[in-house]
């Protein structure tokens, strides 16, 4: 029986006065790759941010590895074994490439160890080559690699990846797809927010569709072809 690593129940979140998430429910099992689909503004990025406590007020329940995280502060949530790659990548300009890579502290509380720096450099040779460059001098693709790579050495077992394929050249998107497959094979659990349906479709085990701050549909990849009409309607893909 699959074991839930992340269980979100009736999650509400606000930014200041505006109520963005209206009771989000979804589950991610250990070792799964789950993609949140939806139009811009449907609340997918906010869902990831709310899991980490980066929104304003939030309510409901977020269980990570069985631990209730709704009332925890952001840095404590991270220590439940989360790795977060934000949509804007969040590469620090005042840090070198390698300093960016080494920045996130180890968060794998339950004995899980992340990849070593040399393993990461084997996987992303570009980052090794440019280790001394200023973080924001890297190309867009390199910055994206760096943004994902730096959460791989922390021991985080649950990765939240926001629009990692956005604005990148096809060859880099293919490299990212290979990376996701490899991470899945290594046992990482991944929640992706993706606009790029063709990137996400072959990678995910399950999909959730969001609309107006709620999950409106959830299905497994096997049902994908049967659901295409519905997806056309929701996403216009």
């Amino acid at each position: 029986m699959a074991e839930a690593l992340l269980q979100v129940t009736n999650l509400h979140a606000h930014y200041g006065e505006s109520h963005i998430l209206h009771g989000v429910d979804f589950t991610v099992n250990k070792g799964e790759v789950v993609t949140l689909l939806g139009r811009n503004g449907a609340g997918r990025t906010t869902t990831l941010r709310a899991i980490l406590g980066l929104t304003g007020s939030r309510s409901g329940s977020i269980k990570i590895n069985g631990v209730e995280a709704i009332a925890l502060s952001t840095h404590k949530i991270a220590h439940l074994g989360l790795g977060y790659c934000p949509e804007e990548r969040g590469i620090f300009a005042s840090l070198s490439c390698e300093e960016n890579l080494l920045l996130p502290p180890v968060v794998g509380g339950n004995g899980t160890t992340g990849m070593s720096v040399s393993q990461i450099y084997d996987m992303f040779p570009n980052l090794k080559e440019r280790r001394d460059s200023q973080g924001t001098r890297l190309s867009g693709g390199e910055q994206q690699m760096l943004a994902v790579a730096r959460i791989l050495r922390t021991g985080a077992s649950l990765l939240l990846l926001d629009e990692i394929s956005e604005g990148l050249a096809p060859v880099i998107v293919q490299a990212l797809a290979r990376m996701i497959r490899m991470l899945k094979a290594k046992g990482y659990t991944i929640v992706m927010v993706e606009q790029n349906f063709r990137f996400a479709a072959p990678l995910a085990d399950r999909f959730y569709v969001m609309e107006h701050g709620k999950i409106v549909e959830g299905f497994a990849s096997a049902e994908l072809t049967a659901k295409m009409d519905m997806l056309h309607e929701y996403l216009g893909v």
Partner: protein
Amino acid sequence: MEIFGVPLQAMLGQLLLGLVNGSFYAMLSLGLAVIFGLLNIINFSHGALYMMGAYGAYIGLTTFEMNYWVALVVAPLVVGAFGMVIERAMLQWLYKLDHLYGLLLTFGLTLMLEGLFRSFFGVSGQPYPVPDALRGATDVGFMVLPNYRAWVVLASLIVCFATWFVIERTKLGAYLRAATENPKLVQAFGINVPLMVMLTFGFGVALAAFAGVLAAPIIQVNPLMGSNLIIVVFAVVVIGGMGSIMGAILTGLGLGLIEGLTKVFYPEASSTVVFVIMIIVLLVRPAGLFGKEK
């Protein structure tokens, strides 16, 4: 020997004085720059906290017979802890607001602290003796170097460059630089940013207090000593630009030297030269000499 009609001895003497002043500018503007970077607060109370450091040494000596060297450690710790209480109790509520609110709050705090010390100690200065080990002067050949002033310059350089090293070259500094750019993301990586902010403010304040203890034997310890200095220090920060740690250090030392030179060649301008430079820098490079243009 003379340079432009000024005896070399007098010139070197003024340059040393300038370097001593510059040491204080550097230590204080460094603290201000670090605090502004991470907390987004223009800490007007920095001068009052420097004054508290000097009084820490004075009270330590008169009440607890604490010697200078102990005071140099204890006073910054006590004043730094006081700063952390201020940060938790007041400043933490202002981070999301405009800079002006932090400036106003710390300005009010300055008036209260200075008022408090004035009502206890009056406005006249209290003398603080130079520690025995640093009395007297050393003849270094080309000039006679007062030992205590040499120590002030040395101590300030060590503290400033140690701070620079920690911020620019260590893991802790990387956290600090990253949190200055994007505190929320750094916290999402699992770092306790609120704690880091509190400790950083405590450190900046402790640096001001350390400068205060260093200053105690040179100037009379008095409640307004910080106000006299802080305006120049703000000008130094504007000239150097808020963005750079090394910039704050070099600008502080450099302006101290320029002030010293002005005293030699045109004494009338010595107290305004910093502000003249500030105006020129603001016109030519509004972000400051070392600041990053937005």
